[in-house]
């Protein structure tokens, strides 16, 4: 136990609610584990884009002598090559959430389930709209994870009566969710449900509905599990009947496992999929992390 290890943690900058959560949970895990394991030290870096994230990895190798890396790649395809370099340098690599464009590079993959989020949501829409209905979709930002989610969702509702009236990018952001929903309300007299895909966007959507006085005409579903939304679900809100988990604290799980590998050289390699499960009134309690900023 005398040998000490350095673990690099590289996550995207908090450029919207969910990544904000990632940063928070990563920071928390790092602080907790530094105390827990005296022989572990961590290097945490946040990056707004893949150029910076690639740079961070280079720096961790060149100047911080890391032994392992936990990375949530902002843009997995762009980061694949850089992560491979780390691996080739003989470091332990844990990839979080997003799949690299080349399989088999990482030692441990704590996978978020983006298609799963789409499918789970689609299943709920099918059950909630058995004889179909009009829905509008607010996408995230035009990057692959969004595409995966939306494609899975569309596939899920393919042969149903559910009609997608319209789709726009809301960039996982409250203001855009608000604007776009306002305009959808102007555009379509009859909407039965809204898929906002993300809880931040959902907040904007709800505000727009409330102001238009149409909050009782339709229900809306977000995603991720922001505690503000979880509370609504738990309270059995008719407007936000469910949420779909895609919890940023998966990064903490990944850091924990990686720490275990070094501290207790436990067998942690392989793939761990964090399912996107449906959060309902009944199970909401276990998804509620009250004292987090997310």
């Amino acid at each position: 136990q005398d040998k000490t290890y350095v673990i690099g943690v590289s996550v995207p900058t908090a450029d919207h609610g969910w990544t904000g959560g990632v940063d928070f949970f990563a920071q928390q895990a790092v602080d907790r584990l530094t105390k827990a394991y005296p022989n572990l030290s961590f290097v945490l870096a946040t990056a707004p884009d893949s150029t910076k994230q690639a740079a961070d990895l280079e720096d961790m190798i060149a100047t911080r002598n890391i032994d392992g890396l936990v990375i949530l790649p902002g843009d997995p395809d762009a980061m694949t090559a850089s992560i491979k370099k780390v691996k080739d340098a003989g470091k332990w690599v844990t990839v979080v959430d997003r799949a690299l464009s080349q399989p088999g590079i990482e030692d441990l993959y704590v996978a978020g389930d983006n298609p799963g989020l789409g499918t789970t949501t689609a299943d709920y829409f099918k059950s909630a709209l058995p004889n179909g209905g009009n829905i509008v979709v607010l996408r995230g930002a035009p990057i692959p994870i969004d595409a995966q989610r939306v494609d899975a969702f569309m596939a899920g509702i393919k042969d149903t009566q559910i009609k997608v009236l319209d789709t726009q990018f809301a960039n996982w952001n409250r203001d855009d969710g608000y604007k776009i929903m306002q305009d959808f309300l102007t555009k379509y007299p009859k909407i039965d449900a809204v898929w906002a895909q993300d809880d931040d966007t959902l907040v904007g959507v709800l505000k727009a509905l409330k102001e238009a006085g149409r909050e009782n005409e339709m229900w809306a579903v977000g995603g991720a599990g922001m505690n503000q939304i979880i509370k609504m679900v738990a309270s059995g809100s008719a407007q936000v009947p469910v949420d779909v988990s895609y919890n940023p604290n998966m990064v903490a799980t990944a850091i924990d496992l990686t720490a275990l590998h070094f501290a207790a050289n436990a067998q942690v390699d392989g793939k761990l999929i964090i399912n996107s499960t449906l959060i309902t009134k009944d199970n909401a309690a276990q998804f509620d992390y009250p004292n987090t900023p997310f």
Partner: protein
Amino acid sequence: MTTAVKESAPSAKSRRLQMNVLGPLIALLLLLILGSLLNGNFLTYGNMANIVARASFIGIIAIGATFVITSGGLDLSVGSMAAFIAGMMIIIINSAVPSLGTGWTVVALGIIAGLAIGALAGAANGLLVTAGRIEPFIVTLGSLGIFRALITFLANGGTLNLNFQAADTYSPLYSGNVFGIPAPIIVFAVVAIIAEVVMRRTTFGRHLSAIGSNEQVARYSAIKVDRVRLMTYVLQGFLVGMAAVLYVPKFGSANSSTAVLWELQAIAAVIIGGTMLRGGFGRIWGTVVGVIILELIGNILNLQSFISPYLNQAFQGAIIIVAVLLQRSRRTTN
């Protein structure tokens, strides 16, 4: 000769003026026509109210930007400054709730704090530009980063949420109506009118364009150049504060993604409105039109269904260019 002059001049002059004045208005008109063709609900009071209400945030900021730009300055930090101020307001209000309760007093406190912080932040920018003699672009690019980092830090990477009861007290300021006119529109209108008067009818406004058009001449003409410059940044900060004051009740929250890139929209609105980026000439009403044009583009893109959402940004870009192209003849003359 003089007589010949008197007859002719107006026509020549008015020709120049026409394009310059009509440019933005034509663009606005074309968009309104386009919108109404695309969707029957476009011209409804509700939709129009939505658009103007949304425009109010960037609008109020862009009005400040008009002053800064007319005097030959630039402020890239307004977006992150707005986010930072909103965050500070939330923290202040939340921390004051225990002592002051969740009534109007606490909200008022928050509002005053917001405006004050805005003015101070603006003063910081202004001092670095005037006393520090650093390019405004660099100063405000730097403070952009600083404010953005501070809000991220304050929010601990996540989102700051306003105390719920306080939010209820506060929210009318955004979602309320006076005679059916949404509150933000009223604030926006009042700010715009005052600003227009300041720009056209006060010494301050005159000095702005003098400095923007030729700083040396201004100095030799007994104008306290640095003080006026500083004032424009303070004013800008104050108006950013006002935008934040309207923003906080909207969602009762702020995080690192709040108001991202508002600076570019604000500057675009100013220039679409006919203010010259090099300084020396500015007009508030143009900026107001510019902001509304920008919101209209977004609104219209949401109301139609043939353009792939992937291409939204492209159309925004194209329309911005065209809107300014309509004023080309004016630029030519200068």
